């Protein structure tokens, strides 16, 4: 008797980095076709398509992808949810299958970001001739830089420093050490945008972007795509033994938005909604943080990784500094985090990220991660945060079928 669980049947990510000769549709098509091939199915088997490309969010991204891989008349959803766009696209396909409306679906996330500079806060109108109030603060000129910062490195720097203020022990060197871990991990990932090991001195001595985040402690803007095929369990049971063996169970697919908290209007609160998503995910999956074999979390900046150890309950509340210092999150540690290299070295093509992190987990659960394989991995968690805010958490389990 099949349950109503939804599984990942096929999944793929492109090489992240600079793809000068490919546009976003080339990258999206490459990932989508490879995910279908990985699952041993075709576009005609799909009952739904959900796709996102944040920089193209006014365009019919999903339908444009269909024109490259097959126009079959199925419902196509264009998804935009900041850095959680990929996870949201996957969840749309997941929910469609869960509801019984389709037995298979495709989710795609893609971005062309190589060479992009600071995100958010950078765009502004020139100061005018006569002061004129605009916006909900009634400001006479852009507030970014004049009343605090709205740039991403600065916002996430403050999020990490706030944790340090609350619990102590977090300083520039500790955040840089987190970055050193992820850059070290990236040396084993051929699809990462940057695969260079860096010393603590190199990281701390690099260009300062927003203290304490230097350049290698920031996620790398790059090009890339990722795609996943989801399938209902009843359909999966009609497929080949090999497909069933390689399929990965989605034990929880959770999406939250930020609930009201004092201060969330002046500094985004990425903590509360992540903790909520994690709690719901553990409850839904019937597993706890101690059952996890590996985690891919949203290290858009080194300062963010620290707070998410706590938010995802990988450590005791307030214990993220000691948890990291114990060595737990290195690939040889008790609970490896970001063995892909994380956003700081693998790269962060925004809408692709929320599927690429799931690809990484699947790769290990299938035992196909080669030299960076976490031996015996059975359960993994993938987390993304999109400022605004949206948090996606997926718990994935190795197939017990076939």
């Amino acid at each position: 008797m099949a349950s109503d669980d939804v599984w990942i049947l096929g999944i793929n990510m492109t090489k992240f980095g600079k793809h000068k000769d490919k546009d976003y549709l080339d990258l999206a098509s490459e990932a989508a076709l490879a995910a279908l091939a990985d699952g041993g199915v075709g576009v005609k088997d799909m009952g739904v398509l959900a796709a996102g490309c944040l920089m193209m969010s006014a365009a019919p991204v999903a339908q444009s992808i269909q024109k490259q891989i097959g126009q079959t008349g199925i419902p196509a959803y264009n998804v935009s949810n900041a850095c959680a766009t990929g996870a949201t696209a996957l969840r749309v396909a997941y929910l469609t299958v869960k509801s019984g409306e389709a037995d298979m679906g495709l989710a795609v996330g893609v971005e062309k970001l190589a060479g992009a500079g600071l995100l958010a806060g950078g765009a502004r109108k020139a100061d005018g001739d006569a002061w004129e109030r605009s916006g909900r603060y009634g400001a006479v000129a852009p507030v970014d830089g004049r009343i605090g910062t709205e740039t991403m490195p600065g916002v996430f720097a403050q999020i990490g420093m706030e944790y340090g203020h609350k619990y102590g022990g977090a300083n520039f060197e500790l955040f840089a050490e987190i970055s050193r871990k992820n850059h070290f991990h990236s040396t084993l990932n051929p699809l990462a945008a940057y695969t260079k090991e860096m010393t603590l001195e190199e990281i701390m001595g690099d260009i300062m972007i927003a203290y304490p985040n230097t350049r290698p402690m920031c996620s790398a803007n790059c090009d890339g795509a990722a795609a996943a095929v989801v399938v209902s369990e009843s359909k999966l049971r009609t497929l080949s033994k090999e497909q069933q063996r390689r399929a990965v169970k989605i034990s929880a697919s959770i999406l939250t938005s930020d609930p009201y908290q004092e201060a969330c209007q002046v500094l985004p609160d990425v903590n509360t909604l992540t903790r909520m998503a994690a709690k719901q995910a553990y409850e839904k999956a019937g597993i706890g943080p101690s059952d996890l074999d590996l985690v891919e979390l949203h290290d858009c900046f080194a300062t963010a990784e620290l707070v998410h150890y706590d938010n995802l309950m990988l450590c005791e509340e307030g214990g993220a500094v000691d948890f990291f210092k114990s060595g737990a999150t290195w690939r040889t540690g008790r609970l490896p985090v970001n063995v892909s290299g994380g956003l700081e070295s693998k790269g962060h093509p925004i809408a692709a990220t929320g599927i690429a992190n799931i690809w990484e987990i699947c790769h290990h659960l299938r035992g196909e991660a080669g030299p960076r394989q976490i031996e015996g991995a059975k359960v993994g968690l993938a987390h993304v945060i999109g400022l605004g805010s949206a948090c996606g958490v997926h718990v994935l389990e190795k197939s017990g079928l076939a």
Partner: protein
Amino acid sequence: MTADKPRQIPFVDYLELGDSPHLVAHECKACGARFFDRRNACASCSGTEFVRKPVPTEGELRTFTIVAFAAPGIPVPFVSGVIDCGGTSVRANVVNVPADPEHVKLGMKLRLTTFPIGKDGEGVEAINFGFEPVA
């Protein structure tokens, strides 16, 4: 108004100038949640009535960053922070202190200060606020 005293306006409409400059929040009548921007309804309780409440001008630095890369026209480095002013969180630049981690410390006591940021074509001066160390 005289020729040597330019007309001044606050940079944002939640800054009140005058003899003792301070910030003013929209406080939800039902639940007390405070907002600096205009709201249609309260994000905490959905109440639709707000009253204007002055915010304490002294507080403690709860977090900060030192921004080295910013939009054109913004002098760098500058210190951005969140100041806890008697339970109301305020976002602001920390000013009148060297922008380095030796001088800017978490938990330091700060107070509101105001300064001109420029004049428009009609000679009207816009006044912004920041927080400076309490001497």
